[in-house]
Structures are given as structure tokens and as C-alpha cells.
């Protein structure tokens, strides 16, 4: 579903992302774990072509969806209008718009309100619904739990797990190890713009989360 080869992004003399390589297969969930400034968001934006890569290439197969770290949605529109737009643009049956909004637990009353009236968490849900609409085969999620409370995070994780079991491939960036361990089959540890190592997650346990945290700290403290 996704193949990234030697992807790099340089700003002036500094490399934000260097020689990133990864592949994600159908039904696989991969975590991108890194401290702030490790290059996670830049890497995802390079994959999507929002940021022009200095080196390397990305192959995206089939329909995909992107959930930005801080979703900026048109404030004067309602969530329903926004999703109906996506349905129209991507030839998705229009009844999927309210269904996707219901999936992220936005009420029928909320989905017709202007997005400027939404709380941060509701905006995040609306943005996720926008991403989910149309059943994309690949989901690129940049800090999807940002701004959500514990209940919201659990609900989001459930949705991602359902999509994964339905065959969707997921790439999720985060610096919160516990969320990542619950969902992902393997985690790529990023530091100083590089993917330093790939760690398999077999048991989705707390012990694995602690081990990953320790690996992240080791790589982050090393000199670039």
C-alpha cells in the first residue's frame, strides 16, 4: 500500500528527514515514534507531496486518507457539508458522510453546526471522519490523539483497530508510546530525521511500551 524509498528533506544545510525507507502492507499498522522535532510530520508530508522531498520517492497504492496533526477545517461550514463535499469529489455514495460522522460519535445536532463552534476534540473527530469517509485503504495519521481526552483516545483507537481488521493499512505518528503499542504491529523509532530502528510489537503489552520508550530515549540522546 505504501513504499517509501530513500526519502529525504533538507532545509538549507539541515536535514529534517534523511534516507527514510519503509513499506506498509494491507492490514498492517505501523507506528512512527519520535520526540518532538524528530521529523515525523515532515516525513508524512513528504510522502503526501505537501512538502517536496529533496531525495527519494513514495509510492501510494489505492485511495488514501490523511489526518493532520492540527486539523484546520473551513470554520463557516458544517462537518456534514465538508464530508458531503468529499463524497462529491471522490465519487463516494453520499450516505457515507453522516455514517462516517456517526462513527466518530458526532451527534446529528453537532454535524450541522458550523465547525468554528467545535471544541478541539470535536474538530479532531470531524477531521477523522473526513479521513475515514470513503473507506480508504491507507491511512496516514499524524498525531491523531492530539487534543483528545482519555475516552476520546480509546474511541479513536477502537476505530483504527476496526479499520485495520477490515484490511486498511495505517501509518500513525505519535510520541505517546502507549497508544502506539495498542494498535501497531511494528514501530519505527525516529530520531534526528532518521528512522533508527524497526521494533516488532507482538503482545501489545505495557512491557513493550516501556522497552520502546527506553529505545526512543537512547536514540534521541545520541548525537545526530
Amino acid at each position, binding site marked *: 500500500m505504501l513504499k517509501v524509498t530513500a526519502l529525504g528533506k533538507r532545509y538549507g544545510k539541515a536535514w529534517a528527514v534523511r534516507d527514510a525507507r519503509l513499506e506498509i502492507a494491507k492490514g498492517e499498522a505501523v507506528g512512527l515514534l519520535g520526540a518532538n522535532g524528530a521529523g515525523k510530520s*515532515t516525513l508524512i*508530508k513528504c510522502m*503526501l*507531496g*505537501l*512538502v*517536496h522531498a529533496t531525495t527519494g520517492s513514495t509510492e501510494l497504492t489505492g485511495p*488514501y*486518507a*490523511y489526518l*493532520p496533526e*492540527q*486539523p*484546520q*477545517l*473551513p470554520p*463557516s*461550514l458544517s462537518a456534514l*457539508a*465538508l464530508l458531503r*463535499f*468529499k463524497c*462529491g*469529489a*471522490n*465519487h463516494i455514495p453520499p450516505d457515507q458522510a453522516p455514517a462516517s460522522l456517526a462513527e466518530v460519535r458526532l451527534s446529528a445536532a453537532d454535524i450541522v453546526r*458550523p465547525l468554528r463552534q467545535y471544541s478541539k476534540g470535536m474538530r479532531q473527530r470531524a*477531521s477523522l471522519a*473526513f479521513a475515514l469517509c470513503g473507506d480508504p485503504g491507507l491511512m496516514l495519521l499524524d498525531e491523531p490523539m492530539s487534543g483528545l481526552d482519555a475516552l476520546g483516545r480509546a474511541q479513536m483507537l477502537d476505530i483504527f483497530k476496526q479499520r485495520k481488521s477490515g484490511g486498511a493499512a495505517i501509518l500513525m505518528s505519535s510520541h505517546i508510546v502507549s497508544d502506539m503499542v495498542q494498535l501497531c504491529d511494528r514501530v519505527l523509532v525516529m530520531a534526528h530525521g532518521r528512522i533508527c530502528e524497526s521494533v516488532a510489537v507482538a503482545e501489545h503489552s505495557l512491557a513493550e511500551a516501556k522497552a520502546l520508550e527506553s529505545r526512543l530515549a537512547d536514540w534521541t540522546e545520541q548525537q545526530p
Partner: protein
Amino acid sequence: MSRTLPLVTLTFSEIASQRVYRILLGVLLLVPWLMLIPASLFMFDIGKVLIDLLFTALHASLLIFLFFMAAPLIARDIEQGSCHIFLTLPMRRGRYLSARFVGLIVALMPLFAAYALSASLTLTFAESHWAAFYVAPHSVPLFDYGAALILMPYLALTAVLFLIAAAATGLPETMVFLFSVWLLCWSLPPVLGALLQAEVAAKTPTWIGTLLQTVNQLLPDLSSSRISLYLAHGKKLGIEAVAGYCLQHLAYALLAMMLAVILFKRRDLT
């Protein structure tokens, strides 16, 4: 094309659902009638004065739309990353910019239509009630014709807005540059006109004139006052002059949009 039309429609909805849009629509229906008050003070020819005032108000309303609705929309899209959700549909950057541009022009049309309708009714009212002070009859078609021609330079200025926004870092930068362009558009033609006078030209270094001419060539020609004056004063405009005027602005808008797309394609959307 399949994604262009939905984005055009969405852009229209996005603008039309703003409160400021509905207020402006109401104001534009009211303004022509308010213009009767200052126009009635010029009892030697109400028609000409009224049309002049209506054209001036139209310029002002088009600027309000451009600065307070169009500029924030496109600058916010690019600066804050609202455009990410459209571009990752996926959608080509050129197509995205073009759809936004067309959507804004479509959103402008109801405002223009409301103003033109209200202004036409006002002119009809003035013509029938103050016939004795009305030198040029049948002013409604003249006004509608002139108002449609006034739209042309604003089409070009909207394209300039996209060109600026494609390269600017955000709304403040976009507004400053757009305001500068608008100011130059208005101020340069009279200065250049003055330079054509022998007395002024003799006292001005040649390079200043050349520089001003060059800058003026780069800007859209907003000084449609000539067109408005001709129409308001009942003078006929040749079809060649009108066609040339329209072509000039359409070509300018197209060129500005092409440059905007080139700049936008090269830009990193962080």
C-alpha cells in the same frame, strides 16, 4: 474536472455561509437608495451624479469582498493548512487554486447581481421622480453595462491576490502586498498622466517616468474611471475599445493565475 466543481461549490458555500457576506448583501441592496440623498443635492443633473456615486460604491464593495472575504480565505488555506484536506483528496495544486479562484468569483456574483438590481431600481425611481433634473435618460442599461465592465479589473486583482498568497507566509503579508498593489494601481495612472504634460516632464528626470511606466505595466489597470465616465456622461464606447479592455483584463488574470500556480507548485506546505 470531477473534483474542481465540488470545490467551486464548496468555496461558494464557505463564503456565502459567513455572516459578513449576508450583511454585505443587505448593505448592497440598501446603498443605492442611500445614494439618492447626496445625488439629490446636485439638481442640475441627478442622473450623472447618481451613476458616478453608484460606480464608486461598486468599487468599494468589490474591494471589501476582496480584502475581507477572498484574501482571508485563500491566505488561511495556505498558511494554516486548510488546503491539506483538499490536496490530499488527492487534487492537483493547480486545479485546487483554479477551483478556489472560480469559487470566489461565483460567490461575488450574487452580491453584484443584488447591487445591480437595487441600483437599477434606484435609477428608474430617480428618472421617473426627478425627470426635470435628468439630462441623460435611460441610464439603467448604461449603468448595468458600466458595472459589468468594472468587474473586469477586479477579476485581474483577484488573480493578483492568488499570486501574492501563493508566495506569502500568511494573511498579514498577503494583505500588506495586496493593499500595496491596489494603492499603486490607483495612484500611478494619475501620476503618469501628469508626467505627459510638457511642464512636468521638463522638470522630471526621464528615468523616473520610465520606472513608473514599467511598474504600471506590471499592475492590473484598475482605473476604469474612463469607462465609467464615458457611460455616465452618455458617450458611446466603441466595440473595439470594450473588447480590448475586456481582453486586457482577462489576459492579465490568466497570466497572474498561471504564475500563482507555478509558485504554489514549488512551495512546501508545512
